[in-house]
């Protein structure tokens, strides 16, 4: 295909991506160095109330918003440099926490950003191996069952995958919240009084459980499809050579699936790093928050209708740096594979 035709075909998609993905990125980058400040005038007002013999007089300084000709408050866009980042990262507090008599990591948990970062990273790195393992075991198990059962099993597995994330998280929550059916079952089994939503770590466990439940079917379907293309000749010769079931798995099946394991890991890293719907579904913001939720909360208007755009921009930029760092090893590998295959 010639350059000109190629450009014609790609143009609509490219224009959309440039205006609605690349341009916002640039604008967020610049926004993070500015803050919007409302202009105030300070006036000293003396108000007096009649009292016995003398008047009671109070002087107070009032801040009143300056209004422009249309009656709208005047807002200045001020260049503040890294101020928004400083408000988010709070380096003084970090320094204090790690000083001689600081509280160390514990103090960091009181700062929203580090709290969100800690949860997001744990969440991503814990769910990744679980998803891969469950997907792989499911694929092998379904591959070994009777043919007539495979269709219904895939149908059942697709349901947790396709369900709206917020709704999926909610339905798990409804089973556990208060005296939900599964909380009762757990209490009956352990004999202890259990409240799943009273402390952070149980919520975190439920969130991870939900994510594995939601994504494992994806890994399963991808691995299952690849299992159908395992080279039967190699398999037969391995059997002739007396390879056990386990040896066949580790020496033939897993290497065959390796590119797909990397593919699923890549997708899962991207998706679980932007964990967000779980925080909404489980209403966990008091105990556990994620980086995306932090930005979301800055963007939600507060009681006065103001959005803290500059802080949201700063946290967006930091979130983005995180995903780039996380993806570099995987991208390097694809790049190397690409060069080898050429």
């Amino acid at each position, binding site marked *: 295909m010639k350059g000109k035709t190629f450009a014609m075909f790609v143009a609509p*998609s490219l224009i959309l991506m440039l205006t609605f993905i690349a341009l916002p990125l640039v604008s967020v980058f610049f926004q993070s160095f500015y803050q919007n400040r409302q202009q105030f005038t300070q006036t000293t007002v003396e108000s007096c109330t009649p009292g016995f013999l003398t008047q009671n007089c109070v002087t107070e300084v009032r801040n009143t918003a300056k209004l422009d000709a249309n009656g709208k408050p005047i807002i200045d866009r001020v260049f503040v440099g890294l101020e928004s980042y400083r408000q988010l990262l709070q380096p003084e507090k970090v320094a204090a926490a790690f000083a001689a008599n600081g509280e160390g990591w514990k103090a960091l948990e009181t700062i929203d950003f580090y709290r969100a970062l800690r949860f997001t990273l744990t969440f991503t790195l814990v769910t990744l191996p679980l998803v891969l393992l469950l997907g792989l075991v499911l694929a092998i198990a379904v591959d070994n069952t009777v043919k007539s059962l495979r269709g219904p099993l895939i149908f059942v597995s*697709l*349901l947790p995958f396709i369900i709206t994330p917020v709704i999926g998280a909610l339905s798990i929550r409804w089973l556990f919240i208060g005296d939900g059916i599964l909380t009762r079952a757990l209490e009956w089994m352990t004999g202890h009084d259990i409240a799943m939503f009273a402390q952070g770590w149980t919520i975190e466990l439920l969130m991870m459980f939900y994510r594995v439940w939601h994504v494992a*079917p994806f890994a399963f379907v991808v691995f299952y499809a690849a299992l159908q293309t395992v080279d039967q000749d190699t398999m037969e010769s391995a059997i002739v050579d007396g390879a056990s079931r386990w040896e066949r798995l580790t020496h033939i099946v897993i290497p065959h699936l390796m590119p797909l394991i990397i*593919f699923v890991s890549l997708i899962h890293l991207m998706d679980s790093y932007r964990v*967000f719907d779980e925080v909404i579904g489980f209403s966990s913001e008091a105990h556990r928050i994620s980086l995306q939720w932090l930005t979301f909360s800055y963007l939600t208007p507060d009681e006065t209708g103001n959005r803290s755009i500059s802080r949201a921009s700063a946290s967006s930029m930091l979130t983005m740096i995180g995903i780039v760092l996380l993806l570099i090893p995987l991208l390097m590998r694809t790049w190397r594979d690409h060069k080898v295959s050429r």
Partner: protein
Amino acid sequence: MADTRALATPLGLKVLTGVFLTVWALVALFPLFWVALMSFRAPVDALAANPLTVLLGPVTRTTSGGVSVVLLALGAVLLVVLYRLPGQFGPDLAKRLALGGSMAIGWLLGAVIFAVGALGLLLVLLPAVANIVSAVIRPIPVLGVLGEPLIGMTMDHYHAVWVKHSFYRNFINSLIITFGVVTISLTVGTLAGYALARTRSNLAFWLLIGALIFRALPHSVLVTGYVPAFVNSREMLMPLWTSPVTGWFFTLFSATPPTLYGQPLAIIVVLVSINQPFTIWMMRSFFLNIPNELDEAARVDGCTHFGAFWRVIMPVMWPGVITTGLFSFLLAYNDYLVTALLLDNQSQTMVPAISQFLNRDTRASDQIEAIAAAVSITAPLFLLVMVFQKQIVSGLTAGAVKG
């Protein structure tokens, strides 16, 4: 080969596999099944301590009636039939309905007919038939018990959600947004995907890598960029309306520039763009499956590039189009973050709107209403998996195999 002893699965492994798969099927289904069950029970029953009470709903039965064994049996048969139907007659029906020779339209119409038909059968015909059968067998001594209401069931919560809290408005908004996203995203995505599959230049490679990086971006990063522009779009676009060069053109549409915040059309474009990287990757992998010789033959016969694309490639491409369309649909339908931040109350879609039920969690019936709303959101997805199971599976693997 299957008969050789080396390949025969040992009994222990067979049992283990069976147990594991049963447990998985239970874990996969239980939350959805149980939540759906709760939505049909009166609050006393739904939140009862004893699981049997939730299952049978005795209080619900005395207050608002219930379903008989006859109805349950007929319902089970109907569900099995509905599960089988798409696989048996789906392709034929799609071929019949393929207006203008496009299979995609055929499948779309087929799916709509199936959805409407399934809803009609389940909600109207099934109760009617069950009532007749019950009335017939009630006088018979032993069989009559089967016709009596056995399990409590109420539609009150659904009624409250859809009528009292006018959830249908959110449903309509969801319909508008998903329809817009799917059509635009497919139109733009097929063109780009086709070009990317047929080019080996470095530019194409870098475009794909760039799309991959865009795919990784958390959506909140992009929304941070949209929010100020969307809220202030009237002031920002004013120069276009007042300038003498372009003003006459834009004032044809509206007297003043629009505020994009809360505009369904603006959200459609945003969701299409966010989804573009994924769409072009998936489309490209489907186009790679179509042999290059096909368009070369068309070109030799005198077609232009676009002619070859439209007359020769698209007719064989419809499975890919349907699959990609499904995933675009899911993205638009399931989205919370973008729609919650950029749409106002009037134009809100179903998923963010559910939070209005959550925040009123004070009475017991409020919680069950939230559950009913959640089940209402899930029901279309359930039908979707029924009809399009094969396409979803092929979509999940397409990106993987060629990616």
